[in-house]
């Protein structure tokens, strides 16, 4: 739905690099924390990525009830 061009992809890529710096600048001291960088989606702007790949509709479910809680000991 967006016109693709080398210029647009380059702009999206530059924005991605800035975003990676931002995402990696927090919590890097934490053990095992996630790290972010270049992958197959780096040539997409976030709004393009969201429009193409994040198409699951939210849904609400009832809270898991205490009475359903299952003991693993009862499961063969």
């Amino acid at each position, binding site marked *: 739905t967006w016109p693709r061009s080398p210029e647009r992809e380059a702009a999206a890529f530059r924005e991605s690099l800035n975003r990676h710096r931002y995402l990696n600048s927090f919590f890097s001291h934490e053990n095992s924390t*996630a790290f972010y960088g270049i992958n197959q989606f780096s040539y997409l702007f976030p709004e393009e990525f969201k429009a193409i*790949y994040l198409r699951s*509709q939210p849904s609400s479910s009832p809270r898991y009830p205490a009475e359903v809680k299952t003991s693993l000991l009862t499961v063969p």
Partner: protein
Amino acid sequence: LPLRFDWRDKHVVSQVRNQQMCGGCWAFSVVGAVESTWAIKGHPLEDLSVQQVIDCSYNNYGCSGGSTLSALKWLNKTQVRLVNDSEYPFKARSGLCHYFPSSHSGLSIKGYSAYDFSDQEDEMAKSLLIYGPLVVIVDAVSWQDYLGGVIQHHCSSGEANHAVLITGFDKTGSIPYWIVRNSWGSSWGVDGYAHVKMGSNVCGIADSVSAVFV
């Protein structure tokens, strides 16, 4: 609960797939759960048709989006038999539903459950052990740039936009995490998988959790 558990170790999880430019994550996660649950019951692990769910689940929008709960409701209500992926291959675009004769072999589900497990992720882990891989929806905006490690920040609960499949968990390290199969190909993340911190409803992973019964 064991410290580590992954249904992949039991050889009941199919390979990571690639949804390409199709917004059908909701179908990939549901079909993945059906495949695994069937295999857990002792049947051969086989790739079932995601395209069939994309084309035929009339209460969803094909490659333009959908809901895991709507797909499960449709599977359960219609008792549609999912055919093998080779018989109805993925085309990465929505199409007309292809119907098979009732004599055609396929797999239908017997039911499903869907619960909000926020603040109860240990119970959620028990459900994983008992029923098989779990269909969940998450906020995956920051997953665009994910390379590896345990996702602990940069996403929210209550903002679900992507459907994935939890195949296991790992509590052996300092940060316990869910093992999450994605549908963006095996070159994304950790061989196609993401690791998401357990216990804090990170990315809303426990907000809407479904299990399939076959």
